[in-house]
């Protein structure tokens, strides 16, 4: 984390000032929500599906229960999250189905979370630490589908996507930005 160099830190650091108190600056506005919802994130409309332009969409994450160890991990050490997807300020489509999916940032792996019900809610499980949630408009409700076919209506990234890369750009760039992907 010490590798993260902030422009604001540099500009705002008068010479000779080396130690400050976080108490003096408190309360520190670190995050907007608290509790299990801390890992919730917003899904943004693509406006590609009729009736979704003013909708509010959200994915809420909880570290999955049921583990004897207070926290549930997959075999590779990734968190196992229970993901709940909800859409509000819109109506269920008269035709077709809205389906929620999770996918890796490189979209090389896709998991179907579920078909949204009449209340425009669904839930599923994700075994990645950084991922996208996508809601698509499908003509068929196929529980066996492994990839969406219809247009993307909403998409959003897990809170872990807020970890900022310094390696691909900026003052500390070490690699060609174009060659650097989203990461894991």
């Amino acid at each position, binding site marked *: 984390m010490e590798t993260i160099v902030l422009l604001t830190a540099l500009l705002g650091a008068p010479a000779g000032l080396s130690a400050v108190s976080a108490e003096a600056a408190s309360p520190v506005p670190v995050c907007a929500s608290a509790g299990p919802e801390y890992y919730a994130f917003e899904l943004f409309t693509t406006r590609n599906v009729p009736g979704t332009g003013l909708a509010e969409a959200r994915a809420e994450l909880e570290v999955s229960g049921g583990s004897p160890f207070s926290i549930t991990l997959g075999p590779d050490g990734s968190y196992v999250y229970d993901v709940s997807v909800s859409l509000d300020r819109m109506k269920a489509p008269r035709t077709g189905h809205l389906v929620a999916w999770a996918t890796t940032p490189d979209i090389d792996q896709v998991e179907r979370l579920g078909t949204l019900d009449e209340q425009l809610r669904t839930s599923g499980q994700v075994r990645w630490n950084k991922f996208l949630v996508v809601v698509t408009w499908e003509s068929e409700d196929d529980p066996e589908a492994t990839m969406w076919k219809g247009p993307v209506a909403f998409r959003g990234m897990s809170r872990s*996507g807020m970890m900022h890369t310094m390696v691909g750009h900026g003052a500390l760039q070490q690699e060609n930005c174009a060659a650097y992907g989203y990461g894991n």
Partner: protein
Amino acid sequence: MTDRRRQARVPGFLVPLWALCVLTPSAASAQHEMHGMTMEGGWRMVPMDMSMPMLPGLENAVPVVGPFLPGMGMDPSMLPEARPSEMVPMADGDTLDVSVSMVRRTIDGHEMVMFGYNQQYPGPLLQAPRDATIVVRVRNEIQMPTTIHWHGVRLENRFDGVPGVTQEAIEQGESFTYEVHVPDAGMYWYHPHVREDVQQDLGLFGNLLVTSPDPDYYGPAHREEVFVLDDMLMDEQGALPWGDSAPTHALMGRFGNVMMVNGETDYRLTAQKGEVVRFYLTNVANSRTFNVTFGGAKVKVVASDVSRFEREQWVGSVVIAPAERYVVDVRFDEPGEVVIANTIQAINHFRGEFYPHVDTLSMVSVSDEPAESSVSEAFDTLREHADVVGDVESFRSFFGQAPDYELETTVRVRDLHQSIVLSMEADTLYVPPMEWNDAMPMMNWLSTGEQVTWILKDRETGAENGEIDWSFDVGDVVKIRIFNTPDSFHPMNHPIHVHGQRFLVLSMDGVESENLVWKDTAIVPVGSEMDLLIDMSNPGEWMIHCHIAEHLHAGMMFSFTVGAERP
């Protein structure tokens, strides 16, 4: 610590912006030129990924406390070489003399001065039958005061080993006699309750195995292995110095970079095909939570801190936080080499990504020769422990009650280097539920117990740490809700330990636990809310604290009283 000293230890400049704009990878590497060199005050720079540039202004910074190494200037060859742990079977009333002394250890090729109980690593493995009382006479021969805390044991309060609460610390040359009554079968451990970040890290820990009179207490296994999991922070010269007047690494705790099982870096086992091995796992690391995997072997979790689970359960790995214990049965079905590993998704903050990381803890060579088959076959059955189910059932009427108390965790810092403060504030846009690796070694090292205060806060009264004043009576069943606040300067998971009592983890984030076990330590991930039900069964003044050694020293503790049974 004077202000002058503090100012002297933190360089008073930051790298100008123009310098960063022309920084090249080679220049970034040059920032690490202090690695391997003795810095101001005798410090050595903390080991870290040399390919990453360093936060401006921290290149020559050292902690505001002085460095400590045991036996500084002493020739280690003058000390006795520590030897592996020996089992000490003890019957009711038996007495054991335990010396706390300096020893010579060789870890990862480095000969070092460390501490030992009876010159052993780990300390002697004590074994006593349930309901026995064993006597342990402790003599302190190290320069630091010490005590022994009998972790998880519901023993008489005056023998709990907390300085200033249940006893005075044992000074060098002095002795203290502990009478340890063991009412619950299971695996426990003992360690100092004075500067755990130093003494425990230097080797002062050992197990206490309490056996049940029921020969069928655990299911069939071909044999048993004790695995004490630990890590140590080392560079090319040996162990990195600890803080003298207060711990370093106060933000995240001191993560080691050398993994050990039973004090050894290359602990190996052999097994026969189909052999069922019962592992008693104890995590004695200062801060690291392990995710223990057993290759492709089949694993079932049987017991934890203070009891067996209601039901045995198949698991893919064992998540074990500092001070926790788990008993797992593992069957090695396939001949070949099985790696017992710490398998995690670490964080690289420079790249802003998770990456898979595996530390080998131990290797098991599985032979072609088949093990005795009846035990192998019995392994396939998951047993239900009716006595545990019945015991838990007698508390079920309390499960739905509103919390009696609510705690939240947070942290307060002062006088940290400005680069650290600004970076931390910006980087907490996302904080993982658990810290599996030290992703910020330099910043973590520079944060000391003099600058960081970790806090347990009573939500109703606002009282913090030692201000909290809770009183109960024996027989009370108390629900406590602990919320790990994500919106603090540096949120982090906390293994919360309750002394002298036992508790159930009823739920995490409102999701009820389906398979209960009596615990004395449990992890609260960041942003999570854990409901505990504590069986106040043991009178006295007892501690609640975070078992990350540096967090404990940085204030994250308080004591509560349990009065004699109500008439």
